[in-house]
């Protein structure tokens, strides 16, 4: 009895997934036409490497956004978690691997603190993470008295290394993205996140472990923000007091540009990857094209706006395709 949509589900899915990728490809090609060297393997690899910073954190942010939450503290976590690891490296002689572990665990702990306020004490995510944005950065400033922290040289051996010609930051980014994709799409936990973001009340009634789900996303976001910070710091070898400040907006923007919704339930690991790559491709392309510094942000803004606009057109098209068809066309 039920009516059928005109387009097969698989076509719709393909268009949904391919849209943002197409936009990315077009941006890369346009900049490639302006400066052919932008299309060289090294340039593209660099772009991906630099996108990994915001990208890794954006993957975490997608988890939070899927629950209709928000995590404003990621910029501060990017600063504080590597800081704790760095202090232990310097004072306790921790190795790079152990430092990475400490950093990630610290990030998880900071995320758990957010989760405590949001899930345990029911503070609105925006306000809770606004408070921890100040708390975490303030704690870091207190620990260091705002001084920069120089990491032992060994850490750059990690950040600047390559495996089979692929730089470590890209590997980490890829691993995180794939793991997140698997978790979100192929585990019960992942599907519970989507369910919760779509309708929290229904999720409770369906007996899903909603509190655990909601808490977990903040822990994941904290963990990945810490990892993102570590990946950059391990390249530079130094942590300045201002590191990560204001990055929460970049991270959210990457996730949203890639198709995640601030209202929950929509988006995926791919959103964060595509969003971060798109923004970084624009930035790097502008550097390659040697655009005047004053004009760079203007062009960057315009390009992102067009990306959002075309994404909107695509969405509208998809909606039209999905609309129920009562009678086949032309009958």
């Amino acid at each position, binding site marked *: 009895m*039920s009516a059928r949509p*005109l387009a097969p589900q698989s076509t719709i899915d393909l268009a949904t997934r391919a849209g943002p990728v197409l936009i990315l490809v077009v941006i890369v090609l346009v900049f490639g036409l302006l400066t052919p060297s932008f299309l060289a393997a090294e340039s593209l690899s660099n772009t991906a490497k630099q996108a990994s910073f915001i990208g890794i954190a954006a993957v975490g942010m997608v988890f939070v956004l899927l629950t209709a939450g928000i995590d404003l503290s990621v910029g501060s976590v990017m600063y504080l978690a590597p800081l704790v690891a760095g202090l232990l490296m310097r004072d306790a002689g921790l190795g790079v691997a152990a430092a990475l572990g400490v950093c990630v665990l610290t990030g998880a702990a900071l995320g758990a603190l957010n989760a405590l306020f949001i899930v345990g004490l029911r503070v609105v995510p925006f306000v809770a993470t606004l408070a921890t944005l100040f708390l975490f950065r303030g704690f870091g400033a207190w620990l260091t008295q705002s001084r920069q922290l120089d990491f032992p040289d060994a850490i750059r051996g990690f950040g600047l290394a390559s495996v089979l010609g692929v730089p470590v930051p890209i590997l980490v980014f890829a691993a995180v993205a794939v793991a997140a994709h*698997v978790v979100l799409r192929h585990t019960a936990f992942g599907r519970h996140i989507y369910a919760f973001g779509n309708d929290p009340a229904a999720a409770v009634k369906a007996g899903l472990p909603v509190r655990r789900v909601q808490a977990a996303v903040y822990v994941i976001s904290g963990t990945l923000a810490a990892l993102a910070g570590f990946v950059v710091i391990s390249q530079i070898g130094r942590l300045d007091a201002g590191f990560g400040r204001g990055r929460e907006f970049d991270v959210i923007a990457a996730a949203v540009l890639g198709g995640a919704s601030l209202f929950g339930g929509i988006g995926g690991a791919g959103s964060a990857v595509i969003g971060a790559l798109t923004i970084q491709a624009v930035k790097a392309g502008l550097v390659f094209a040697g655009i005047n510094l004053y004009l760079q942000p203007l062009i960057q803004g315009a390009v992102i706006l067009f990306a959002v606009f075309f994404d909107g057109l695509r969405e509208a098209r998809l909606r039209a395709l999905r609309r129920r068809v009562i009678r086949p066309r032309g009958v």
Partner: protein
Amino acid sequence: MSAILRFEELGKDWFGVPAVSNLTLDVPEGQVLGLIGENGAGKSTLMNMIGGVTEPTRGRMLWRGRPYAPASAAEASAAGIAFIHQELNLFTNLTVAENLFIDGFPRRGGLLRGLIDRGAMQRRAAGLLARLGLDVPPERTLDTLAPGERQLVEIARALHREASLIIFDEPTTSLTPRETERLFAVIEGLRAEGRTVIYISHILGDVRRLSDRIAVLRDGRLVDEGPAASFDVPRMIRSMIGRDLAAVFPERTRAPGSRPVLEVTGLSAPGVVENISLTVREGEILGLFGLMGSGRSELARLLMGLDRAAGGEVRLLGRPLAGGPRDRVRSGMAFVTENRREEGLMMDATIRENLALPGIESFSGPAGLDRGRIAATAEALRETVRLKAGDLGRQPVRALSGGNQQKVVIGKWLPVRPRLLILDEPTRGVDVGARSEIYAIADRLAAEGAGILMISSEMEELMGLCDRIAVMSRGEIVAEFARPAFEERRLLAAAFRSGAAPASEPATGTEG
């Protein structure tokens, strides 16, 4: 016959006001218990207590003879109780299969242990759907499904848990007659398997037909209980409302005028509706009957300017309409949508805010809104539509029962004095008392000269209320009947005519 679930002097107070009091009742194992009562009679509270959503204030429940006090929905589910709620608890961003298995996905073994076994999930989902005769690929996302299909998915979800007690709360509100029959067969099958069912519905004939026993709640108390055979519909109504209901439908005193209010000619939208022509006259109630998916609601959206038509003309009082919903509202159109939660109401806003919205501009004076007049209008509406509510200026619409919410959706249009009112499934999920009040409102509006287009899949109410009935099928108007010619068989035949054999119809473009 032993009781699988027993309530002992159960009571629940909300802010000191009892919603359920002193309820003692057995739910016999392996039978169907019909539970009826008006909205606000305590059915929902009782269900919430069974489901672990709220805690009883007094008394206790016994599950298979042992005290039962679920602290969460999960505990109720673990005990073997499944719910099919009136408001669907589905996730529109997930696939059908994922919705079915959201609380217990099939897992893979081996190397990928812990991951969802999508193959197994898809197969099992397909099996469940087939059992309900729902021909939808399990990998479709839910937001592409029609309301009736979603309802069936919700039922399928309860079935797969192999629960020993299944509670149906208004399951048929968005089902086609055919789907309803299918559901009833499934319920018979469950009983035959020895499962217990609680069936809650306002469609009293269905309750009587399905149930072994019937229990009636009024004002939180059990007022009547006995074998279904001893109940007839008048007794059920009498028990529910505490008196005899004179008539569900208003007495026919008005006569339709001759001046057309709405004239639709050749309206088409590719893939949705084709060449629709109809006329609604002053003081006339035109019924629009059709099965789910016949294009009725889509036609309403086109008329309201929410979707764009490709061809044809819509005239209101002789004036052609071109703009969006705002222009149409200003020229005298009003629309009560089939989906009050998503399109009809601001759930968290107060009742007064909701009632004032369509006519808000008319309340403006030189010093801004006349709040006194808004309050007075709202109070007047409370009387007109017989709203059962507290302080209109404070109580959010969310806190109202479904029937009263629906009265707000209709009531908010009255101050703007619509010339044409489109009602899309106005009595879905509404109890018998509220239903007759909604019919009365429609009738009164018509008597005052408005034209009414009433869309419904309940033939009975169309036949009781309308002056003419048009039948839609596959996006076209296939027949029209004047009042003397109303006959259930003919209406149904028309509705099925051009959709010849829908069940065997080849599914276009869904495979692969």
